[in-house]
Structures are given as structure tokens and as C-alpha cells.
């Protein structure tokens, strides 16, 4: 048992967790699982999260203060942002390709789609938004009149769903109203300790840490030596903490998965129902995500770094990927991602400590791919034909949104509302994809984390600092 590598153990924990959840739900033990097993999963996420902020702070300061000259940092920063933008655009491209080829929205019953379309046009009229994007009007077409009354009595949302939606809409509204430069302003902390005390203000901590690190480099070595020594030591302590926590990861992952699945549904049959309900959409999205992780990133790495080993990469990254899947939080996974990238892929700490925290907050390949697929799926579902130009608008908004989303908690759905609004679609549609979102979020996070690792490898390569590890 002891000889098994960590990632194998994590997989075992993951599989056992799912099996346990199914077994417990068919035996009626769900309450036991939620009361006595699920808390350990929460403990795990908390352990990782409390390490994440100090680790970001100290590892960035440590990494940057180790640079010999700061001018290389500007180059590094520009390269990082550029690489993240490119991978995000590529991921969105993959999403668009999948959703246009598979057309998951058109697998639904034709009359239902016509009804959807009609209710959408009614919504447009109610909000005085003029014609739909494709310029057609089903309402004025007598052929569709027979569906009209049915469309008007479209399904009502439950009270809770509506409240949830209204909250998200309000947040989306705030995001839209502020000055276009607001996201830059929001990067500067008002009180650095306050930023440290709030996980959602991670970008501010990164800003401060970079600033602080750069300042250390510019000061004479002897004056800052005690500070550098302190930061270095604390950083090592936190890294060691990650090590210790990860020893227990297989057990924690078991608890986490058991809890997640148990909470999703009471019986195994219900779980399957959820997936079947949105089958074509989920499958398309999963296909896109898989393609990005297993084809696109390896291809990029293969082309740009010569000595790339496919199995090696996934073997080294798998602890982080499994963790991303089970926690569905790139911030919580960050400590492990850093370790995998440094020890497994041979990226020097001064690069990984700079690139990865930024990636964890800014780079959201999986999330933006999801945006593209989901929005176009919803359009298809409502019989709306979007031209390539309109789809590109969505791409642009989605990728900008994913950058701005860094500061917004549970950003995915809120940003989707922004995207839907920006192309004149009904933002209430996000309710359609609520049910499967928890599971898809887990998969998106894997993409996000793998993307971060890929970019950090590329940056290290381009700086000529990639040291191969066996």
C-alpha cells in the first residue's frame, strides 16, 4: 500500500468515494454520509485554502526577490499575460468548434424549440429590445401561431431558483455599471491585511506581493536580508504543510467525493437522471474540455518544448488535476499545483511562484470554454441562429469576462449572465444549466489548473530555465 504513488492513491480514494456514495444512497445511508463523512471533505478544502493565501504572498515575494534584475520581470509578466490570453482564446475556439459541429441544442424536440423561440420573442417585446439577433420573427409567422398560447404559459421557476437568479443578476448589474478601468482599480488593495483576510481578494494580494518583491530587489542586500530570510523560511514552512496535508489527500478526496455525490441526489437513479436531462449539452462540454486537456495543451507543449513526454506530464500533474476535480477550486488546488509544477515538471520556483498564482485568478480556460458552449447551446435551444460574427462577439465578451471574473466569487454563472445580456439573450436562461453546473465545474477546474501548469512550463522554457526532472 505504501509503495503506491500518491496519484494512484488519490484515484483510488476518488473511485471509492463515488462507489461509497452510490452504495450509501441505495442503502439509505445518505444522512450518515453527509453528517459524518462530508465534513472531512470540507476540512480538506479549508486546509488547502488557508495555506493558499500565505503561500501566494510569501512565494511571490520569495520568487521575485530572488530575481537578479527586475527588468526581466516586466518581460515575464507580459509573456505570462500573453500566454494566458492565447490559451484562453484557443480554448474558446475549441468550445465553438464542438458546439457548432455537435449542435447539442438541436437534439431537442422541434416543437419545444419553437415554443422556446416564441417565448424568447415575447420576452424581447416585453423588454423593448427589438428584434432578435438573427433578425427573424417567429411571432409574425402564422405557421407558428398554434404554439403561441403554450409558449406563453412557459414553465414557472420555483421561488428559490428565482431568488438565486435575482441575486446573480444584481451582481452582474454591478459588474457592468462600473468604469471600464474598475478592474485595474480593484487590483490595488485598500488595506493589505484586509485583502489577506479575504480569499476573494487574492488578486490584491498578488499585486501587493509583486510590488513588495520588486522593492526588495531594488534595495541593498544587507538591509533586506532579515526580511528575505524570514519570507524564505515561512515559505518553506507552508510548502511543508502542503506536503503533510497531501499525505492524507486520498482519504480526504474519498470523503469529498462521497459528500458531493450524496448531496446531488438521494438515489443513484436521480443522479443518472440529472445527467441524462442535459446529456447532449454536458457531453459536448465534456468533449471540449477533454480535447483541451488531452490534445490541445500537450500539442502546445510538444511544439514549443522539444523534450515533452505525454505520459510524464500527466503523471506529474495528476495529483493537482485530481485535486482540482474534487475541490473544484483552482485557489484551493494552487499549493499542490505549485508543488507538482516545481518538483514534477522542473519549473524553477521564481517562475512558478509568479505565473501560477496569477493563473489561478486570471486564467480560466475551462470557464471561458464553458461560457461559449453554454451560451450557444442556449441559443440553439431557442431556435436562434447566431452568425460567426455574433459568436465571435460572444468569444470576446466571454474571454474579457473571464479575466474580469477574477475578483468575482462563483464567477462562472454571473459572468454568463453578463455574456447573455451583451448579446441580447435572456439572462434567466442560466437556470437551464444550474442542475449540472456543480459537476461541470469540477471538470472546468481541471482544465483551468492544467492550463496554468502548461503556461508556466512554456514560460520557463522560453526563459531557458526549464530543468527536466525524471
Amino acid at each position, binding site marked *: 500500500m505504501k509503495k503506491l504513488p500518491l496519484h494512484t492513491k488519490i484515484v483510488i480514494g476518488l473511485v471509492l468515494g463515488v462507489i461509497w456514495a452510490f452504495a450509501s444512497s441505495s442503502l439509505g445511508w445518505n444522512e450518515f454520509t453527509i453528517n459524518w463523512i462530508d465534513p472531512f471533505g470540507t476540512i480538506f478544502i479549508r486546509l488547502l485554502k488557508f495555506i493558499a493565501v500565505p503561500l501566494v504572498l510569501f512565494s511571490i515575494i520569495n520568487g521575485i526577490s530572488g530575481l537578479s534584475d527586475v527588468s526581466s520581470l516586466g518581460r515575464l509578466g507580459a509573456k505570462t499575460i500573453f500566454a494566458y490570453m492565447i490559451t484562453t482564446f484557443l480554448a474558446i475556439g475549441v468550445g465553438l468548434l464542438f458546439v457548432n459541429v455537435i449542435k447539442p441544442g438541436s437534439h431537442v424536440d422541434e416543437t419545444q424549440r419553437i415554443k422556446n423561440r416564441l417565448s424568447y420573442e415575447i420576452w424581447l417585446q416585453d423588454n423593448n429590445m427589438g428584434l432578435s439577433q438573427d433578425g427573424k420573427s417567429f411571432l409574425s409567422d402564422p405557421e407558428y401561431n398554434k404554439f403561441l398560447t403554450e409558449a406563453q404559459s412557459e414553465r414557472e421557476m420555483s421561488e428559490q431558483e428565482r431568488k438565486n437568479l435575482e441575486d446573480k443578476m444584481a451582481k452582474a448589474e454591478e459588474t457592468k455599471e462600473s*468604469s*471600464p*478601468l*474598475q478592474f*485595474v*482599480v480593484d487590483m*490595488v*488593495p*485598500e*488595506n*493589505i*491585511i*484586509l485583502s489577506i*483576510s479575504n480569499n476573494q481578494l487574492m488578486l490584491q494580494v498578488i499585486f*501587493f506581493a509583486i*510590488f*513588495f518583491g520588486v*522593492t*526588495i530587489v*531594488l*534595495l541593498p542586500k544587507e*538591509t*533586506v*536580508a*532579515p*526580511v*528575505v530570510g*524570514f519570507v524564505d523560511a515561512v515559505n518553506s514552512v507552508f510548502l511543508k504543510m502542503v506536503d503533510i496535508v497531501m499525505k492524507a489527500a486520498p482519504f480526504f478526496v474519498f470523503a469529498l467525493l462521497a459528500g458531493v455525490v450524496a448531496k446531488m441526489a438521494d438515489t443513484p437513479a436521480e443522479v443518472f437522471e440529472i445527467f441524462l436531462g442535459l446529456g447532449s449539452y454536458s457531453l459536448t462540454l465534456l468533449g471540449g474540455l477533454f480535447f483541451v486537456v488531452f490534445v490541445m495543451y500537450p500539442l502546445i507543449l510538444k511544439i514549443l518544448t522539444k523534450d515533452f513526454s505525454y505520459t510524464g506530464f500527466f503523471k506529474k500533474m495528476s495529483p493537482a488535476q485530481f485535486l482540482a476535480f474534487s475541490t473544484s477550486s483552482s485557489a484551493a488546488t494552487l499549493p499542490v499545483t505549485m508543488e507538482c509544477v516545481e518538483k514534477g515538471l522542473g519549473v524553477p520556483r521564481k517562475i512558478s511562484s509568479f505565473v501560477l498564482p496569477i493563473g489561478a485568478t486570471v486564467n480560466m480556460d475551462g470557464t471561458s470554454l464553458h461560457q461559449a458552449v453554454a451560451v450557444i447551446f442556449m441559443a440553439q435551444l431557442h431556435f436562434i441562429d447566431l452568425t460567426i460574427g455574433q459568436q465571435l462577439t460572444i468569444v470576446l465578451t466571454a474571454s474579457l469576462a473571464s479575466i474580469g471574473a477574477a475578483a468575482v466569487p462563483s464567477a462562472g454563472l454571473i459572468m454568463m449572465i453578463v455574456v447573455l445580456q451583451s448579446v441580447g439573450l435572456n439572462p434567466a436562461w442560466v437556470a437551464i444549466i444550474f442542475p449540472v453546473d456543480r459537476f461541470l465545474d469540477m471538470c472546468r477546474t481541471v482544465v483551468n489548473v492544467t492550463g496554468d501548469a502548461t503556461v508556466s512550463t512554456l514560460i520557463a522554457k522560453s526563459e531557458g530555465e526549464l530543468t527536466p526532472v525524471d
Partner: protein
Amino acid sequence: MIKRLPLHTKILIGMTLGLVFGMICIQFPSLSGFTIDYIKPIGTIFIRGLKMIAVPLVLASLIIGVANIGDISKLTRMGGKTLLIFIVTTIISITIGLSIVAIVKPGHKLPEETRTNLMELYDTNAAGKIDFAEQVKSRGPLQPLVDMVPDNIFLATTSNSAMLQVVFFAIIIGIALLKVPKEKGAPVIAFFDGLNDVIVKVVEFIMLIAPYGVFGLIASLMIEIAGDDPSKAWELLYALLWYSLTVIAGMLIMMVAIYPLLLKMFSTVNVLDFFKGMRPAMLLGFSTSSSTATLPVTMERVEKHLGVSEEVASFVLPLGATINMNGTSLYQGVSAIFIAQALGLDLSLGSQLMIVLTATLAAVGTAGVPGAGLVMLVIVLEAVGIPAAGIALIMAPERILDMIRTMINISGDAAVSVVVASSENAIDKEVIKEHVND
């Protein structure tokens, strides 16, 4: 060419351009939206930067400051005497500032309408303030003292308005560091010393964007106050004139009343001789607006022309340049109250005392830091709950007032050194007779 200009000149240019640009925007309303969307954020970033560094700055510099001061005062009797006079003159100067601003009320020179406008702009919740005032009434007289002690130091550091608690904590730590054995305290002191250096450098970097930040703040302030009515902009400038005059009047009182009184009562040096001897240093302070940069000249004048012994001068003056800032603390008192008046906030006596305390204590640590004046003002404003963005109001005359207050700071240091020297019998009267006019 532009790179060679000293920072303070650039700030001055930023201010003037900001005023002019703001005026232009008022004439062409289409520009206003652009300015608010794309230029104002630069100013906001600047203010946020200052806020970001405030807590760490106070913490590190105060711990180091106290640790070092304590060291000196243990060594000599002179140290204790010097500190006492520094603290007394600082309190006097703040009191003068607060009294004169309460009498002149420069903030009320703004018409009522503009003030409500400003209130909305900075979102000063009047209702909340009334609630707060009610609470204050029902509390015991010693509550402010209780409030100085933090419940949880990390919680205190997360709130800019709990600055006094941070100050309290830092002073306690500084004192404690002196009381533990040297070899145990040394690594901690070394750490905070290094940290302090880094933070001071960070402040320097933030000040690099000051010219642009000031430009953005002033331009957007003009637009937001005036809307499309240029006469309101003039009213604002008029109120600023009154504010500047108030600060200058307060400083004049220090210069022509308090220092002469101090010299007359506690020293043997003639007041006229003092000003004659100090004139070059004061002029240099005026033009550089840095007491540290002027320090060599101040020392030379005090030793060679006022006859203070080298021992006293080399101890009192460098210390004074870093911890004694009469002009600055007076300026802070006046500015805080002016902003409060302009925003329609009534500050209780308790809040005003808080300003005195915060300004005095913050000065102990942060005085040597270039640009610290602004950071300290942010600290003082946040401590009494005035929105720090109100700083934009007083940005325009800040540069000129900075020059004058440096002059006061330097005169204060010199006066204290003369008083200390007199009490220690360390003054050479022959020197005054022979060299005072050189």
C-alpha cells in the same frame, strides 16, 4: 528632460494641469464622461496605493521608531528632555491648528449646495454618523481610552479606521522589544528594520505616480463638483484659498508667538538672533520641502552660528528631523477638519482628540518618509471616519503648504535644540555675537 524634473515639481505641474483640464472639461461636457471613466481611476489607484501601505508603514516604522528612541532615552537624561519638548510642541501646534480651523471654518466657505453635492459624491452616510454620535453620547468618558486597545490585533489591522489600535500595539511591541535581552530582540528588530526599509521604498514608488494621480483626482473633482456650472469651480477654489490661509495663519502663530515664547522662557538666546542665524536653513527647507535634505545646513547653522554645542546639535537635530514635525501635524489637523467641514460632517471633541493623538503618534514613526505627509493624512482621515478620497479636495494647494510646513518643522527642531542646549549649559554665546549675521 521630463525625467530630470524633481518629483515635487512634477506634482505641481500635475496639479496645475489637472485644474486646467478640469476647467476645460466643464466647458465641454462630452469630455467629462471620458475623464470620469478613464482618468479618474488613475487618481483612485493612487489613493488606494497610499491606503494599502498605511497599516504596514505605521506598524513597521513605529516599532522601529520606538525601539530606537527608547534606546537613546535610556542612555542620556538629555534624551528624555528632548522627547518631552518635542511632544509638547507637537501637541501645541496641533491644538493651534484645530482652534484656528474651528474659528475660521474654511470648509463652510463652500455653498451649501456644493457641500451636499460633495457629501453624495463621497457617500458620507449622514444618517450613520448621527447614529454614531448618539452612541458616543451614551458612552462613558473613558471609552476612547478603552477603544485604543485592540480586541484582536489582526482584526484591527484589517480596518484602516482602527489605526489608533495599531499604533497602540506597535508602541507596546516597540517597548517590549527594548525590555527583552538584546540578543533575543535583535532578529525581530532586524526584521522590522528591513521591512521598514522596503515599505519606505514602496511609498517612494507610489509617489512616482503622484503627478498623474493628482492630475486625475483634481480634474475629476472639478467635474464632479461643478457639473456644467463653472462658477462652482471658482467657489471651490475660493474655499481652498481660505483653507490655505488658515494653515498659513496657524503656522505663522507658531513662528511669531510659540517659538519666541519658548526661546524667551527657557533659553538664553535672543529671539531676533535666532531667526537671523536660522534664515538660510529655513529658506532651504522652504525650497526643498524636506527636513532631511536640509539637515546638514540646519546643523551647521545651529552649531556655528547659534553656538549650540556639537554634542547637543548632533543628537537633537537628526532626531527632530525624523520625529518632530510641528508644521506637518498642524497641517494635518487643519486639513482633516477642513475636509470634514466641506463634507458636512460635524466632528465631536472626541474625534478631534483622536486626530491629535493619531497625528502625533503617527508622526513619531513616519516623519522621515518622503511623501509620508499624504499617507499620514490618509491615516488620520480614516481614523476618524472621513472618506480618504476627500484628500482630492486639498491636493491643489498641498505643494505650497508643504514648503511652508517644512520651514516650520526646521525652525521647531532648531528651537528645541537651543532650549536643550541652554538647559545643559552647552551654548557658546561668543559664537552668536560673532557669527550670527554671517
